[in-house]
């Protein structure tokens, strides 16, 4: 039984991969998008429980996507975690201004991110599943 569905948005494929892996291990179902526009499309179809969103992306950046999510009554309750290499206070403040629920700077620890997601979704830390052989 899945603990929830997470939408991971990043234009860097390896970051999407590692998040897919780590969240999968934790028992989450993961859907992915590689840019802002794709993210908004997936959002409608997949109705995720939480979104992990990169900021610097082509087409539509993370701030814009977050703003769109938070201004739509249908999606505004979905927690958004911004994930960015932009680590200055102003960048963070801007993130919270557009309605983000959390802001994590790169480089990040996948474990910490998972813990944060568990927290936001009111999930307890599950025992690590034994990886399948």
């Amino acid at each position, binding site marked *: 039984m899945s603990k929830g569905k997470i939408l991971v948005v990043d234009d*860097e494929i390896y*970051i999407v991969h590692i998040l897919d892996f780590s969240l999968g291990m934790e028992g989450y179902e993961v859907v992915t998008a590689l840019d802002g526009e794709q993210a908004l499309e997936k959002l409608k179809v997949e109705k995720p429980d939480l979104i992990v969103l990169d900021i610097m992306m082509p087409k539509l950046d993370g701030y814009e996507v977050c703003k769109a999510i938070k201004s739509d009554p249908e999606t505004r309750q979905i927690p958004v975690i911004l994930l960015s290499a932009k680590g200055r206070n102003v960048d963070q403040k801007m993130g919270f201004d557009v309605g983000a629920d959390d802001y994590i700077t*790169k*480089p*990040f620890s*996948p474990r910490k991110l998972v813990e944060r997601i568990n927290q936001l979704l009111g999930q307890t830390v599950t025992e690590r599943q034994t990886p399948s*052989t």
Partner: protein
Amino acid sequence: MTPSIELTWALCASGLLLWEATRRRRSLRGEVRSLKSAYESAATRNEQLTHAADEMGRLYRTELLASRKRAARLKKVLEIGTSINSNLALDKVLHEIVHAVSDAADFRIVLLRVLDERSGMFEARAFAGLDRDAIQKLEEYEVPKTEFESWLKDEFRVSRSYFIRQEVKFWGDKDKDSYVPDLGERKKGEWSAEDVLFVPLSTKDGSIIGYLSVDDPVDRRRPTAEVVEMLEILATQAVVALENSALYERLNESVRQLEEATERAEELNDLKSSFVSIVSHELKTPLTIVLSHVEALLENVGTSNTTMQRDFLTVTHEQSLKLKRLIESVLELSQLESGRVRMHREPFNLVEVVDEAIGLLHEMAAERRITLRAEPAPREVVVEADRTLVRRVVLNLGQNAIKFTPEGGDVVFRISGEARVAQVEVKDTGIGIAGEEIEKIFDKFYQIDSTLSREYPGVGLGLSIAKSIVEWHGGEIRAESEPGKGSRFTVELPVTPSDAGVITHATWSPTRSVSDHLTRLTVEMVAEVMNARMASLMLVDEEREELYIKAARGLREEVVCGTRIRMGESVAGWVAEHGTALLVTDIESDPRFGRQNGHQYETKSLLSVPVKVGDRVVGVININNKVSCTPFTEDDQALLTSLADRVARAWQHASAVDTSSEQAEQASRAMAAIIDNARRARLKLTSGSMAAKAVATGRRLGISEEDVQVLAYVASVHDVGMAQIGTPVLHEPGKLDAETWALVAQHPARTVEIVKPIEFQEQAAEIILAHHERVDGRGYPRGLKGDQIPLGARIIGVVDAYESMTLGRPYRQAMSHEDALAELRRCSGSQFDPKVVDAFIQAIVAHEDTKLIPTPEAA
């Protein structure tokens, strides 16, 4: 305007008024006298006399009125002259001047021409008494400078003006374009229409900037000396107006340049910060991938999921390599852009370099099944450039082409050479670049689409690096492309560096490398050691071939900010151009001395030396106004030359690539210690005369000029290390205890240590170290004997002993000059070299006579 100039105007104005009044009074007085004599000789003609007296009174009143009017007019001109502030106002002032000339000197026609420096022609700028046609004619005809100069013959000269009579007119029909007014019938001896009277407008340094020419005198008479004098006073006024206007223009120009420079600096700053943020983002991305994968791997150590482990390790490996490349590229680019990379230009064959690059690209091309090809080229295309850097450019362009060309495509290299330019072209059959993107491809980290960056891995700096290198060589790089068909990159390199205008940007430049702190220290050190009230440091602006003041002591701020001297002009410009020192004993008689800023010089002597890095003059140090008010001497020149060499040394430390800022710091500390030492020396009243005494002694012993310079310098710094020993030692009476003695014995070595960062002459250090050695071997620190002690050190030893004896110490009474000399003679052969003692005594006696060295009694 400063008060002093206003005051000058006021004096000048009142002088003119007085002059005018006196002239009138004098002529009236004459009249009175003659009338009086008429009265005395013919007492019977009483009535007639009364009438004449009345007439005289009336005349006097009219004359007075006219005089007043004229005076008012003159005053106005003078007032306008002081408030001139724009070109528009210049025309107005010139207009006023020509009308004032017309009124005051009684000429109906007045013309003022101004020399246009660029065209070398005298242009008509102001007119009085001329109709529109005449003005147009005069404006159309510009007088060439050479023609004007041909008029300046001594035979025509009256005071500073020239009067050329119609009878001697020598220019024939050459001036058929110029204007000759119709003055009607003229009697012989009267002023003729073709008579010419003009006053050159010359500046104080003697250069002519225009001339004032008059015609049609009201009294029809040819000019008197009085009239010429009047004209010349007014001409001076015109010169001032023109110079003010030129100054104003220069000021405006400087303001504009300053604004531009500020803008450029701001742009650069913006670019820099955006570069930093881009770099940090680009670095963080692979780092994030590496760290997150490693963490996942660590958590899965020991599990049997080997596929995942292998995948993650591969990603980690790839991304680590990417990070490494990225860091290398960023460093390379920032080094290139900071101008810190040294360019090693050498002639080499471009064809060979392209072949090498193709060889290196082979593997990468083979992986993508791309054919690399070089089009038939000349066997040899030689360019003088940095071989490694040029290969880098070709490699980067090749990599870029391979990266964006689909499998099976072609990348073709083509080389061509002309007389001045060599070309390398890299053509591919790749995906191409859309028109609007082409300008951005040389930007850092620019890749058209980030999806492409996954498909075509790279750091996005290759083209930026190529562009930097090419432009540094004074070349050009450009791209042409058609989306879907391919791109062509063309590099043009100048064959020889003389065709490369931008080289100087990246090479050593004092403006970029020397901090304000260091320049301030330089000026301070020079002023203190040389005992000069005014010291300035000028740097060479190579681009504009000018010198400007970087830092100064004893100069007003506006002079520091406003002075720019062209290479070759005035004293500093001459020094910068010739690379040799110049000692001017009388600035007023030296032709190189520009009039500019003359008022700052309290004394007539000026010393100016170049600061050279290698053979290149990067700056000029000027000093003036010796505290002692005496002129500078050759000894001062030797000392300042020596100091300038050390300054150059310190600057090099501050700018060298391969040295740490620690060395720059040490250089600064050395200079600060020298400043401190010079100040303390002055407190002890040695007043820098040590250098002079040492040099005079050295010269008597026949040492070379180079050694003189070293000696002068060492004499000024040899006790720098004493400050570290601490003042209590120096003030302590009686015999020194063993511990203190050991400390004192260290001071020569300390001095060497302190000045070492700016020292480059082994012999200077040697002299410092040995100046307390004694010829009998009982000196310190090494106990050298006789000739083992460098001659310079033996000289310093004698001079130092004399100084310390005659000046005394807090714990020891000062000796008289004679007693000190007797003491030197007594110790000659044991403590001192007899030869040196003799030379010193001769020198000091000779100097005593001329009083060039202030003796302690005099100080």
